[in-house]
């Protein structure tokens, strides 16, 4: 087992993205949190490094048309994409989780295109993302899956795609969509055959400006405020059938989507670890320079043991996300471990930031205090990409074979 091996490539990713997080993300994080604005300039810079438009893990290579396994030349040969993904995700979220998601948000849409799209669709996707928009911003993509009445239970999608000649006509409302208001291209999930249940759910590539595609209201959120979240409406939106993903493949409809979500969970867990580590390091610095009742803070068990507890939790969470990623890289079924890593990472991020706030006291009540911001950012990791309850359901089902209610 080599998950603890000091792989030079992983070390390089950590060093490069860690430096990027400290030098470029941290200085602007509070501003974009306060303004609830996307860091477009930074995103352009990140694009130059190959971090946007595609998933940090596999999207960029996949979108070139080369399959991951094909690139390695042997489907059985271990890859390293997932481990690079978790190492990079931790570093970016260490800088700012909202900016991390702004940088990587397009990858949510790129992933199904790379997995299920044919060459024509990949070219169309790339074309729609090429260049800058009228504001000079890089173009971003959005994956439109969740709906107002469909959060955890994605099998209840109500958006429909009705066949009409060479087109599908999409109707429905999407909610909590990353990049939903600004995207140049959307991958929207809709049911093409309500009688087919989950198997009828398909993804469609829809360009901005397509009649009937209406970007909706941007949400004001508790945290990750540098990442845009918005509603998207589809009102008789006609999309050519060639833009339906999974054609000619043995697609399992919604199940493909769920597999895709499974694959991102280690990275999401790693982002939570990044937030926890940020709060931990901030607190260590404060404790090292501080006194309580005339003695160094670090000499007090009340403080020092709290930090020791945080360190235990962070190390455990990091080990879990790396194990889940290592299993993915070795082509092993990691569904249970990915859920464990995601759920535990979310728990640790919330615990560590909450404890840090209590120890910091009144100084950390101010809006924009880094730990106060990280506390707000941490909460989403127990909600999106499958809530903590959904992760426990997956884990329990893998143990007992049934869905507990």
């Amino acid at each position, binding site marked *: 087992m080599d998950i603890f091996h000091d792989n030079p490539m992983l070390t390089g990713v950590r060093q490069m993205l860690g430096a990027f997080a400290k030098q470029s993300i941290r200085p602007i994080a509070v501003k974009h949190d306060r303004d609830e604005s996307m860091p477009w300039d930074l995103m352009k810079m990140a694009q130059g490094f190959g971090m946007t438009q595609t998933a940090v893990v596999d999207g960029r290579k996949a979108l070139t048309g080369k399959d991951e396994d094909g690139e390695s030349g042997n489907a059985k040969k271990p890859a390293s994409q997932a481990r690079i993904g978790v190492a990079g995700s931790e570093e970016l979220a260490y800088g700012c989780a909202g900016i991390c998601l702004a940088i990587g948000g397009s990858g949510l849409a790129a992933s199904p295109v790379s997995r299920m799209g044919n060459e024509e669709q990949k070219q169309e996707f790339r074309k729609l993302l090429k260049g800058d928009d009228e504001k000079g911003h890089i173009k971003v993509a959005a994956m439109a899956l969740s709906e107002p009445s469909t959060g955890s239970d994605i099998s209840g999608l109500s958006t429909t795609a009705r066949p009409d000649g060479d087109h599908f006509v999409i109707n429905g409302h999407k909610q909590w969509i990353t990049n939903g208001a600004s995207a140049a291209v959307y991958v929207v999930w809709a049911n093409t055959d309500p009688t087919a249940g989950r198997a009828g759910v398909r993804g469609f590539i829809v360009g901005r400006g397509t009649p009937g595609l209406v970007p909706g209201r941007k949400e004001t959120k*508790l945290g990750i405020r540098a990442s845009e979240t918005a509603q998207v409406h589809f009102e008789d939106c006609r999309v050519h059938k060639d833009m339906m993903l999974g054609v000619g493949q043995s697609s399992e409809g919604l199940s493909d989507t769920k597999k895709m979500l499974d694959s991102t969970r280690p990275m999401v867990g790693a982002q939570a670890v990044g937030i926890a580590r940020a709060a931990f390091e901030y607190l260590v610095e404060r404790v090292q320079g501080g006194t309580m009742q005339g003695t160094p803070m670090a000499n007090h068990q009340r403080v020092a043991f709290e930090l020791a507890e945080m360190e235990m939790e962070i190390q455990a969470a990091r080990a879990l996300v790396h194990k889940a990623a290592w299993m993915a890289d070795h082509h092993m079924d990691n569904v249970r471990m990915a859920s464990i890593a995601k759920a535990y990472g979310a728990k640790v991020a919330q615990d560590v930031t909450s404890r840090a706030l209590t120890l910091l006291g009144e100084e950390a009540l101010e809006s924009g205090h880094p730990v106060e911001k990280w506390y707000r950012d941490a909460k*989403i990791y127990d*909600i999106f990409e499958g809530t903590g309850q959904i992760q426990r359901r997956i884990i329990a089902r893998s143990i007992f074979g049934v869905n507990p209610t």
Partner: protein
Amino acid sequence: MDFALDDEQTLIAQTVRRFVDKDVRAWAADADRAGAAPPRLSAVGGDLGFFLDAVPEASGGLLDGPYSHLRRALRGLELGRGCAGMAAVLETNVEPALAVGRWGSAAAREALFASLAGGGLATTARDARGTLDVTRDGDGLRITGKIGPVPALATASHVLLAARTGDEPVLALVATAGARREAVATSGWRAAAWGSLVLEATAVPASMVLARGAAAADAITEVLTWYKVSLAARATGVATAGMEHARKYADERIQFGKPIGTFESLIRLRDDADTGAAAVRLMALHAAWLADRVVDGPTRAAAHDAASRARVLAGDVVDRATVDAVQILGGYGFVNDYPVEKLMRDARAFAQLLGDERFDRILAVRAQQGA
């Protein structure tokens, strides 16, 4: 032992509950967005007896006998259900008014009560970490450093300050006029007019020093007891509000073919929050009952110990309950269309104000051990 409320206590709780349900909850979201309480809060709150209930009648207030911390805790339970920020404004005058009434000089009483009777606010701060430089200046004090962030300090005319000069505790009333004041934007309690006060060798005359030495230690213990009881009660209200919203949502939201409130995991989240709130409610009321009966050192220590325990648990319970309320609402909980994300932000101050309560408890035990 009788756990039932008497008629007067019931009337207070019902009156404040009506005020909260009719007005405070309706104002809460706008006040949070604006970072300020609505101007109507002063008038409506004043009509209900807030702001002046701890000011003696002879000085233009409403207090004509012993102050009841039990009644205050009962109203705090309700205020917390409405808005923690507005609750902080409505309750901010109590500690300064009671302290000055008990230990203040004629000059201090006149200065503070005239301000409060004229519609002014006062607030309370504790230099828990000893970061202020407080030195003797004759019989007065000279203070350098920053107080805050503290609720209501952006507008308050006076700060009741608990601090130390070297090894000697002092309790003083500090006028804010002339000192540099900074409004502070906070994440929670945004309606509470938070502020900081920067003191640069600011002189506090002897007439404004309420107590020093052993007398100050006792006085500070009592002030903190009052404040912590009120915080625990208000925190319980915030936790209760979180679960009220979560329960309503969970009963209506259908996932996997049934209301999410019927899933065992969510029943447990709600039940744990309700259990915690029930425990803190009793602890806060018990601490308030003890605070109303302080007559000597042992009763003072018992009241503070009860208040401190209530405040520790309240901080944990309100944090957990509001985080879980957001969890139950899921994606809706994370956006500000629903009130629970505000409650989660509001919850934090209950554990962060006045210093680290758990560390205080360690110090209290050490003192008992003679260490």
